[in-house]
C-alpha cells in the first residue's frame, strides 16, 4: 500500500501580497489583498477608498443642473451616458416632453461613447496579457471619437453635454460628416482587431476557461453589462427598458453562455459592431427641431422617489433620487456597474494563478472612480 509522502523540508504556507494601489493592471487606484499559496490564489480582497470623493454627498448640496457634471467623474469612459442617466431621471420626474432630436442625438453620442470605451478596453486588455501593440491601435481609433466629442461638446473626456431638458448646445455642423467618416473607418479596423488578438493562440490560451462565472452567480452577484451577458444573463437595459431612441433601432443583444474571460472579450467585440449598426441607423434620420426645452432656472422635483437606469459601457447604472420638493435632492444614490462587477472577482479568481487574475480583471473592465465615487 502506498503512503502519501509528507515533505518536511519544505513547508507550504499561505502568504499575503498587495496588488496595487499602484499596479498597472488594476487600472487605477485599486488595492487587492491577495492570499496566495505559491502561485495559486486563495482569496482576493479588494480594498477601496483611495479616490473616494463623496460624490453622492456632494449631490445633496448641488442643484440638479450641477449634479450632472459630477457624474462625468464617476465612470469617466462613459461620461455622456452617466450624464444622460441623471438628466433622464430629472426629466421623468418633471414629466418633461423631450424633443425627438435630443433623444436621437443622445443615443448616437451614447453609442460613440460605448465604442470609445470598448476601444480603450480592448487596447488595455491586450496590454494586460502582454500584447503592447493593441494599446496603440485602440487609442488610434478612440482618438477619432475624441475629436468628434471635442468638436461638438467642447471636451474630450468630461463632456457635461447633457442638461436636464436636452443638450447644452446643438450638434456641430461637422458632426454628421465626422461620425460617418468614423463609422466607415472603424468598419475596416474592427476585423483587424480580430486578426491581431482574437484569433491568437497565446491570447486564447490565456483567456479560454479562465475566470468562469455561471449564470446563477452572475445574477446573484448583480453582474450587469458585458460581464453578465457573457454568462448568458440577458440584462441589456437598452433592450429591456428602452430609453431615449433605443426603442426605434434594431440591434441584437450580444450573448454568450461560456462565462469565461474569452466570452466576455467576444461580447464586447460584438457590442462594438452593434453600436456601429445603431449609429448607422440613426445618423441619417436626426429629426429637425429644438435641441433643448427650457426648464425653470431653479429645478425643484416634486416630492417623491425616482429611479432611472441606463446601460453604460460597463453595465447598468442606476440613479435613485429622493426629493423632498426642494432644489436639492434629499438623497441621491448611484448604483454603479463596476461595484457589483468587482464584488464577484473573489468568486471567480480563487483557484487560479496570479496571471489569470490579471486577465480576468481586464475583462471585468473596472473603472475605479466608478466604484469609489
Amino acid at each position: 500500500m502506498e503512503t502519501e509522502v509528507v515533505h518536511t523540508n519544505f513547508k507550504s504556507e499561505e502568504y499575503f501580497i498587495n496588488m496595487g494601489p499602484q499596479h498597472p493592471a488594476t487600472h487605477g487606484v485599486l488595492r487587492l489583498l491577495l492570499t496566495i499559496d505559491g502561485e495559486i490564489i486563495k482569496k482576493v480582497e479588494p480594498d477601496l477608498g483611495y479616490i473616494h470623493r463623496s460624490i453622492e454627498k456632494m449631490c445633496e448640496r448641488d442643484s440638479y443642473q450641477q449634479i450632472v457634471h459630477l457624474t462625468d467623474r464617476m465612470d469617466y469612459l462613459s461620461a455622456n451616458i452617466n450624464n444622460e442617466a441623471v438628466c433622464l431621471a430629472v426629466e421623468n420626474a418633471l414629466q418633461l416632453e423631450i424633443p425627438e432630436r435630443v433623444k436621437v442625438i443622445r443615443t448616437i453620442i451614447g453609442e460613440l461613447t460605448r465604442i470609445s470605451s470598448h476601444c480603450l478596453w480592448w487596447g488595455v486588455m491586450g496590454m494586460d496579457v502582454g500584447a503592447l501593440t493593441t494599446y496603440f491601435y485602440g487609442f488610434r481609433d478612440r482618438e477619432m471619437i475624441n475629436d468628434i466629442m471635442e468638436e461638438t461638446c467642447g471636451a474630450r473626456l468630461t463632456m457635461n453635454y447633457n442638461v436636464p431638458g436636452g443638450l447644452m448646445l446643438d450638434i456641430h455642423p461637422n458632426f454628421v460628416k465626422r461620425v460617418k467618416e468614423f463609422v466607415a473607418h472603424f468598419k475596416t479596423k474592427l476585423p483587424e482587431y480580430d486578426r491581431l488578438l482574437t484569433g491568437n493562440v497565446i491570447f486564447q490560451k490565456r483567456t479560454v476557461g479562465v475566470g468562469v462565472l455561471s449564470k446563477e452567480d452572475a445574477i446573484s452577484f448583480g453582474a450587469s453589462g458585458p460581464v453578465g451577458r457573457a454568462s448568458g444573463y440577458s440584462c441589456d437595459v437598452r433592450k429591456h427598458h428602452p430609453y431615449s431612441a433605443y426603442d426605434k433601432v434594431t440591434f441584437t443583444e450580444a450573448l454568450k453562455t461560456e462565462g469565461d474571460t474569452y466570452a466576455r472579450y467576444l461580447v464586447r467585440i460584438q457590442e462594438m459592431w452593434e453600436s456601429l449598426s445603431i449609429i448607422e441607423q440613426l445618423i441619417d434620420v436626426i429629426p429637425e427641431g429644438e435641441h433643448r426645452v427650457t426648464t425653470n432656472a431653479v429645478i425643484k422635483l416634486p416630492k417623491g422617489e425616482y429611479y432611472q437606469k441606463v446601460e453604460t459601457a460597463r453595465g447598468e447604472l442606476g440613479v435613485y433620487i429622493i426629493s423632498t420638493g426642494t432644489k436639492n435632492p434629499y438623497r441621491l444614490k448611484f448604483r454603479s456597474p463596476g461595484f457589483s462587477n468587482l464584488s464577484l472577482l473573489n468568486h471567480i479568481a480563487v483557484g487560479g494563478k496570479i496571471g489569470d487574475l490579471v486577465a480576468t480583471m481586464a475583462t471585468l473592465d473596472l473603472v475605479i472612480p466608478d466604484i469609489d465615487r
Partner: protein
Amino acid sequence: MSYFSDIYKGIKTLLTGMSVTGKYFITSKKGAITQQYPDNRDTLKMFDRFRGEVIMPHNEENEHRCTGCQKCEIACPNGTIEIIWDRGIDEETGKKKKKIDQFVYHLSMCTMCGLCIDVCPTDAIEWGQNFENSVYDRTALTRVLNKPDSKLMKGVED
C-alpha cells in the same frame, strides 16, 4: 499529433497578427497619428467649442457685457467665480445701478462644466481656447477677468 498541429496553429496566428502590424510598419506615414506638440504650436488650432478657460471679451473701448447679475456665481458648482460688485451712478438716468468691481475667476478650481456660460443672460463670458495653464505659483491662476477701468457696454441690460 496535436503537438504539431498546435505548433502550426501558433505560427499561423502569429503570422496573421504580424501581417497587420507589418502592413502598418510599411505603409503608415510619419505623423499619421501623433502630433509634434509643442513644435507645432504655431499651426495648432483647437476646435471652436474647446473649453480651455473662461474669458470675458472686451471691445476696443474697453467695454464688457457683464451687468453683475451674479447668475454665473450661483450656477457655478464649486465657487470658482466671485463677483465683487458695487453701486455706481448711471450716467443717463442718474439712478444708482449695480456694476461689477471685480470678476474674480479661480481657474484652479474650475471644472470646465460650462454652466456659467450657459446661464449668463448677456453672453458676457465665453470659452477661451488657451489650455497651457501651468504656472509655478497657484496664486497666478486666480484672475480678474474684467480689465482695469473697463465699463459696461451701452445698451446691455439683464
